[in-house]
């Protein structure tokens, strides 16, 4: 059967042949005419050398350098370009064995004949200098320069975090990273990885048969230069951080200090800590294993992740809630016979002036007052039920940033626990529980748990009379802005007028005329306001806790200190906090308090060798 379109076969044939001829012409141009792709006979190897950018530098709030980069050299091998070489000389230059050479070359061959593998990581600069001279005798090898993190002061390991090489799991989760790349694994190296890392580049070189670089391929037309990472400035005060770490030596616990008006973290100590240099370079994996198996868990960032009941510190919040809800006023008093008893329950207090109102109760940390106070909130008829009353209380507590992650710029922060009424409904049954069973919450024990950074943030909210700015460590980033969330004001549910009586109580606790619980924290002229806590610890000695801010008007620092197994809040946490405040506000410790500084630094709760002659402050209680 013939059809009238049969002639179209010629058109179709032409449509097939024409583009193919065009391709042939293009190929002829590309392969034969255009000289730019040609390689000469004796430099027929191209080497793509990755340019690794150096990570951004990290400064503290005063412009002091905290982290910089040091050059390091990796020896690379391309098995397909290897030629026989003098193994003995090679080994002696690099201080390696012949077995190592054979093994690494075998591994590299297995990976790829023509792609480069790392042969020897981070060769010393001395070996590098010698090798440089002799590299032409070892075809197939070349040196790849990298940079490693370096720390002028061995401080703030938990804040800075560390950098490591990506593994297969990280590559799978982070597109754009390939084997051999570095990535921030913890701390701000991780949070600000995108800003710090910069962009990789590549240089394509022509290499001759003698392993000599003949120059850039095509005048570098295909090269891409690396972009260094952005420098960043932290809100951290390096001197204060170092001082805090010294005070916390041989102790377990943490210090968090925040500038209340900005939410900037001034210091964040987690003890025990480690030297950040330990987790850099070739020694990293060995040291990491050692640190990870340490029973004191130095890698654990207690400031963000340790959960403690807040203890008596929490009386401050319960006082504020009662004032806000109109349950008590400044003049409401409860009498205290030295204990609080209801039914079969007894909460011990100590002997102090009685009856007490809000300021006095905070000054002496009266358990009876806050037991009454808390039950009065829950049982107040205006809520209709204990459940409702409890939820009102719980909502107020949460408005201080407790019970949820603060969403700071640290990657691994925990949320703590502020129970809801539903929790007790499940535990006791709906409407089967009374305020009496909850009474321990009134003095900061029971189901409550908080992290040190949450306590410091709560203190900042009190110092600000009712609001906080999410704590953060990043102050500024070169060519970029910090997260706007770190400028936002978070209001608590307490009106600012209710803070004055509570702050007066905190002031008296430190500077009070008589019977203040934290008189060890008093520093002349600094107007420190604080509250001690002694956290009951069923597993051993109580934890010593203290929150404070100073000065009373226009506060510049809010701080929380936890020292595990150290006993009373007034003996360890309060003096440490006061020394930190004094260091920050005054610049140095006054001569009259040097003995206290010495005693704090000497304190040892890890090796259990506590100083014998413990000085007991008058009326020492939590």
């Amino acid at each position, binding site marked *: 059967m013939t059809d*009238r379109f049969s002639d179209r076969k010629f058109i179709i044939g032409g449509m097939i042949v024409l*583009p193919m001829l065009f391709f042939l012409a293009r190929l002829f141009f590309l392969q034969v005419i255009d000289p730019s792709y040609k*390689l000469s006979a004796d430099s027929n190897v191209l080497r*793509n050398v990755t340019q690794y950018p150096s990570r951004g530098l990290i400064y503290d709030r005063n412009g002091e350098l905290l982290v910089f980069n040091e050059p390091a050299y990796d020896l690379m091998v391309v098995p397909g370009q290897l030629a026989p070489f003098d193994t003995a000389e090679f080994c002696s230059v690099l201080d390696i064995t012949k077995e190592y050479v054979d093994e690494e070359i075998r591994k590299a061959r297995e990976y790829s*004949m*023509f*792609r480069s593998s790392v042969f020897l990581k981070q060769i010393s600069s001395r070996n590098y200098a010698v090798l440089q001279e002799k590299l032409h005798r070892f075809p197939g090898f070349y040196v790849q320069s990298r940079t490693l993190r370096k720390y002028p002061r061995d401080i703030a390991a938990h804040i800075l975090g560390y950098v490591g090489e990506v593994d297969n799991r990280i590559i799978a989760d982070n597109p754009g990273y390939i084997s051999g790349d570095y990535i921030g694994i913890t701390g701000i190296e991780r949070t600000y990885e995108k800003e710090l890392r910069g962009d990789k580049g590549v240089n394509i070189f022509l290499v001759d048969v003698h392993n000599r670089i003949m120059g850039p391929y095509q005048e570098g037309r295909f090269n891409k230069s690396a972009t260094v990472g952005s420098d960043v400035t932290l809100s951290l005060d390096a001197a204060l951080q170092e001082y805090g770490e010294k005070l916390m030596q041989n102790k377990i616990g943490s210090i968090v200090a925040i500038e209340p008006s900005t939410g900037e973290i001034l210091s964040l100590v987690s003890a025990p800590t480690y030297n950040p240099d330990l987790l850099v370079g070739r020694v990293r994996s060995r040291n990491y294993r050692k640190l990870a198996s340490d029973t004191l868990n130095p890698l654990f960032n207690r400031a963000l992740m340790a959960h403690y009941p807040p203890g008596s510190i929490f009386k401050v919040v319960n006082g504020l809630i009662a004032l806000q809800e109109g349950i008590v006023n400044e003049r409401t008093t409860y009498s205290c016979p030295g204990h609080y008893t209801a039914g079969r329950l007894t909460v011990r207090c100590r002997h102090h002036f009685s009856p007490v109102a809000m300021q006095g109760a905070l000054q002496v940390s009266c358990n009876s007052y806050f037991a009454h106070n808390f039950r009065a909130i829950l049982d107040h008829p205006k809520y209709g039920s204990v459940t409702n009353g409890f939820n009102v209380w719980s909502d107020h507590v949460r408005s201080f940033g407790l019970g949820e992650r603060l969403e700071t710029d640290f990657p691994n922060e925990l949320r703590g626990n502020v129970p809801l009424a539903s929790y007790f409904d499940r535990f006791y049954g709906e409407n089967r529980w009374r305020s009496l069973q909850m009474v321990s919450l009134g003095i900061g024990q029971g189901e409550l748990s908080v992290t040190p950074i949450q306590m410091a943030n709560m203190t900042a909210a009190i110092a600000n009379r009712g609001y906080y700015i999410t704590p953060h460590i990043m102050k500024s980033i070169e060519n970029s802005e910090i997260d706007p969330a770190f400028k936002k004001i978070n209001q608590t549910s307490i009106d600012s007028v209710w803070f004055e009586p509570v702050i007066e109580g905190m002031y008296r606790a430190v500077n009070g005329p008589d019977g203040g619980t934290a008189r060890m924290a008093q520093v002349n002229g600094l107007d420190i306001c604080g509250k001690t806590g002694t956290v009951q610890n069923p597993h051993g000695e109580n934890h010593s806790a203290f929150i404070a801010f100073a000065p009373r008007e226009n506060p510049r620092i809010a701080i929380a200190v936890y020292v595990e197994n150290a006993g009373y809040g007034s003996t360890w946490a309060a003096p440490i906090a006061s020394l930190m405040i004094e260091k920050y506000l005054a610049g140095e410790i006054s001569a009259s308090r040097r003995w206290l500084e010495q005693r704090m630094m000497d304190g040892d709760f890890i090796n259990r060798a506590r100083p014998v002659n413990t000085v007991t402050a008058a009326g020492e209680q939590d």
Partner: protein
Amino acid sequence: MSRKINIWANLDWISVLVYLILLMTGWISIYSAVYNDAHQSIFDTSQLYGKQLIWIVAALFIAAIVMMTDSRFFPFFSYFFYAFTLLMLVAVLFFGTEISGQKAWFQFAGMQMQPAEFAKMATALALAQYLSNSKQKINDPRELLNIAVLVFLPVLLIMLQPDAGSAIVFLSFMLVLFREGMSGYVLFFMFVLLILSVLALLMTEVNMILLLVLLAFISHLVLGRNIKLSLKAGLLFLLISLTVVGVFFLRSPHIQLEIKLLVAALTSCFILFFAALKIRKKYAPLLLGLLAAALVYTYSVDYVFENLLMPHQKSRINIVLGVDDDPLGQSYNINQSKIAIGSGGLTGKGFLQGTQTKFNFVPEQSTDFIFCTIGEEWGFAGSFVILSLFIFFLLRLVYLAERQRSAFARIYGYSLISILFTHIVINIGMTIGLVPVIGIPLPFISYGGSAMWSYTIMLFIFLRLDAGRTEFLK
């Protein structure tokens, strides 16, 4: 009436020979592309080249089975097969394995199957069956609509995966329709659209106006057949629109491109309208319509490009157009590909001597970028031989298609030619930087069983039909 004939004797052995040469070239190139000291044997089945040999042997078996099938089977089952692949294309969206963002593969027992590959074949069979039995004229709009539905149903499903590369291949059926009598204007129209799309992405507003002027001039000329008049109209048109746009707009960067274009278009329309009046009144609306359509189209290309394409698709197109250049990103692959092919020179570096294709190169060196290995190791000589082989092969198939007595076999043959042609042009075009990187393989040469089997079946169905062309007279 039917006659018994010896299909093996009637088999077009020339095509089979070229087919085998291409398969062997692919096998050897894959060996060279992924060559590894530790596995020197080309028969090592733990390596890609060993596996490819298994696919090849299996493909030959499949070819033999196809050859022994009764040729009445293919038209008879074509609709059934078409429906079945549509089902598979739906199923793969639900049960397929997701590989780099595409749900295009079925995986079972360590094997992979890509329904889109078989959809090409099924559509070719169904189209041949439909066209060969249709009583309607092909240029009848209803008939064109039917054909469009038949072809675009699988395209739609493939776009959902999403696999733009495979979907584009279906456009090649236009060639078949052209052979069967579809108006040549449709092909020309498609070609103009393609050119406009490319230009729309490259152009600034000034160039766009020049383009519109050129278009107006050509249409004016075609319709009026008066070169002097057209030149006058075109020149006037150009001058006035450039002046208007130049004076009022180009100096103010605050005015949106759209507004500039709108003004340019309105001015142009106005001028053109008067120019057209001088030719023949009845053409004026047509001219205006054409111009407006071209304007809307060029603008919509920009819109689609900016708003609807994925970033990687954008960057692939930009690289081919030379718009942006990032050596480590998309264009890194193209650069490396060009370096590899370019460094091959006239005669190449020799077997296993290619370094570029093995060294820090694109990941798809044995599949989509296999042509680089050929270009690098065998030079222009090798490229020439392979391209010539392909040209010869395609022309041979055209010859075979034309000698068919049944419309079914001829239409199917042209479908096969169109599909192979599109693959070859896109694949080689992308390795030399003339076509955006669309992940489709080079037929018979790239690594991979699924595609190779699919092309083998497609080819041998045609060769079977050809061998039996004298069996039945239609």
